[in-house]
């Protein structure tokens, strides 16, 4: 059997594929963060809590209304986005003129409140959520067994990321958005409703987090802290990619999934730290991040 550094190549392929799947979650979450930071200048620390809300709404729909996975995939993001929009209108919008730090503090506080509420209501150990019937089972790829559901996660994530990128880079709406990021006052002078656009962008970013939450529900434990464990890594991804760079966030998400996957094979103890080591190195060499522009 062929080996690379003592690991059979087949096993290595398997691990790379798994890394890509994890990268899909990083990509979806960091995309939302990058979008929000780009337009709102808010470092959205409540992103993890909103991801958790997505998963919990899916569970609530199933438990209390009998609504299955596919319906949840549509309703949960909408419901969480509405919640996000309310937060943006009544809280965040007051902070745009202030330093980044205030937005960070507010969203961090929000995250604590949301997580605390869910912990109080549903406890800490999490809720069961099964893989939908249509996506159970798996394919034998020869080098590994790939659950159909994991394949679906990668496809869904790629479609979402690509779709968002096209929307922002290739459509007129995206052009307004990018213009507003550069100079909001000028764009507003042309008669475009910038505050409305800001609100909708925040809603969109939040919806992305909620979709990631629903996608995660069947494979990870659905508990109130599931977001806070992930959000730190996702922030590292955004920093490595370059704050505000959308393509950077997506590519870095997948890349770091791969790096983490490899670490899990060669030195598993370091799997949770490797991303931060990469972050430190990138910041030393390119302080604006891999895809960021120096402002």
């Amino acid at each position, binding site marked *: 059997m062929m080996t690379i550094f003592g690991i059979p190549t087949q096993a290595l392929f398997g691990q790379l594929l798994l890394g890509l*799947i994890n990268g899909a979650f990083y990509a979806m979450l960091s995309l939302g963060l990058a979008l929000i930071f780009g337009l709102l200048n808010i470092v959205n620390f409540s992103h993890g809590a909103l991801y958790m809300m997505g998963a919990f709404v899916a569970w609530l729909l199933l438990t209390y209304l009998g609504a299955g996975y596919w319906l949840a995939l549509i309703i949960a993001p909408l419901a969480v986005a509405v919640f996000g929009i309310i937060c943006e209108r009544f809280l965040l919008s007051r902070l745009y003129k202030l330093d980044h730090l205030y937005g960070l503090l507010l969203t961090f506080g929000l995250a604590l409140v949301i997580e605390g509420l869910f912990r109080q209501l549903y*406890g800490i*150990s*999490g809720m069961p959520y099964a893989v939908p019937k249509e996506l159970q089972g798996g394919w034998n790829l020869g080098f590994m067994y790939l*659950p159909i559901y994991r394949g679906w996660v990668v496809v869904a994530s790629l479609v979402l990321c690509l779709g968002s990128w096209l929307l922002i880079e290739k459509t007129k709406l995206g052009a307004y958005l990018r213009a507003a990021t550069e100079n909001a006052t000028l764009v507003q002078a042309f008669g475009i409703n910038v505050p409305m656009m800001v609100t909708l962008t925040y809603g969109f970013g939040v919806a992305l987090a909620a979709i990631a939450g629903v996608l995660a529900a069947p*494979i990870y434990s659905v508990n109130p*802290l599931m977001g806070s464990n992930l959000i730190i890594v996702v922030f590292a991804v955004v920093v490595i990619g370059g704050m505000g760079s959308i393509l950077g966030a997506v590519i870095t998400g997948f890349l770091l999934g791969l790096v983490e996957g490899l670490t*899990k094979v060669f030195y598993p*103890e370091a799997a949770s730290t490797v991303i931060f080591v990469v972050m430190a190195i990138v910041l030393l060499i390119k302080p604006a991040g891999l895809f960021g522009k120096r402002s």
Partner: protein
Amino acid sequence: MIMKRLMLSAAALALSAGVAQAQYSDNKVKIGILTDLSGTYSDLAGKGTIVAAQMAIEDFGGKVNGLPIELVSADHQNKADIASSIARKWYDTEGVDAIAELVTTAAAIAVREVAKEKGKIDLNSGAASTPLTNDKCSPTGFHWTYDTYAMAAGTANAVVKSGGKSWFFLTADYAFGHNLQAQTERVVKANGGEVKGSVRHPFPNADFSSFLLQAQSSGAQIIGLANAGADTINAIKQAKEFGITQGGQKLAGLLVFITDVNSLGLETAQGMVLTTGFYWDMDEGTRAFSKRFAERMNGKMPSMVQAGVYSQVTHYLKAAAAAKTDEGIKVADKMRELPIQDFFAKNGKIRADGRMVHDMYLAQVKAPAESKGPWDYYKIMRTIPGDEAFQPLAESTCPLVKK
């Protein structure tokens, strides 16, 4: 003459007051529940342990030899420094006579040091690690519900004897995980099994697919999960997803609580073998307690840690009443002397190292079709006699054990 009589009666008064004070400090017995009220362990321990302690005090009649019993509680947030500073404050200035529950080994050991130094009682229910009854043992410290030795011995023995000879471990990379893996390996090897390998995963960890594939390619029959809480839940959930269990390999959860099974759902958890110190649906006594407990906890049945707190608080109160004092050493001696007889422990006894020896149970998680409703999760397969379940006294490294 009058003067003399006055002095005599004054002396007698002082003497009697002095005696009363020596018996029960502050003229009451005060118990503190120090636990995780907000973190990872707040479901299996947490608020439920306060409720269990309240029930124990009410069932005892609320008084020890006519003096009131008081209960206080605090959140140690699973941090050793917070736990030890609360313990110090409680023992020193707030007149707490015994601290109970103490989930998380680091917090438990921190409180043990303080209690030992002050000659006060500490009663462990939630913490798992064996050092509490080995080199960290104390004349006034007790370990009640379970420990890593009992969990490993119970589950690993049963699994190896039913043919699961080769093992691969997924181990949480911190003291508890290492301890649990070492204890299990010992049992596996002693029974003629072999260990094919292990992987240490970061704590906490959400995605286990990579580690599960490594376990799969090892070819081991059994994948031992030397972790707890959300890590165990994620590993089991994903093992099913990756077809590990369908492929013939079996999972052995080495520390699984009923709250974990509740969170996994029977569909995913069915068939799993585990060891537990208590299950609510065993006999009249356990059902009666659990029903009353559930009424106060929104229908949740007690975990073994919560039931253990009821038992330890009750036993402490009995001993404090029999010893006619709340002085640490004297109550501790009485606790060792009296047998423990309640719904939790039948013929339980406390050894020199502070271990409360009682029967443990080997259980299997029911299939969804076998379950009659919420919390109907386990089939008890075997009662593991206390002497077989826990580490033999001869192997203890506790200095209090005379050899």
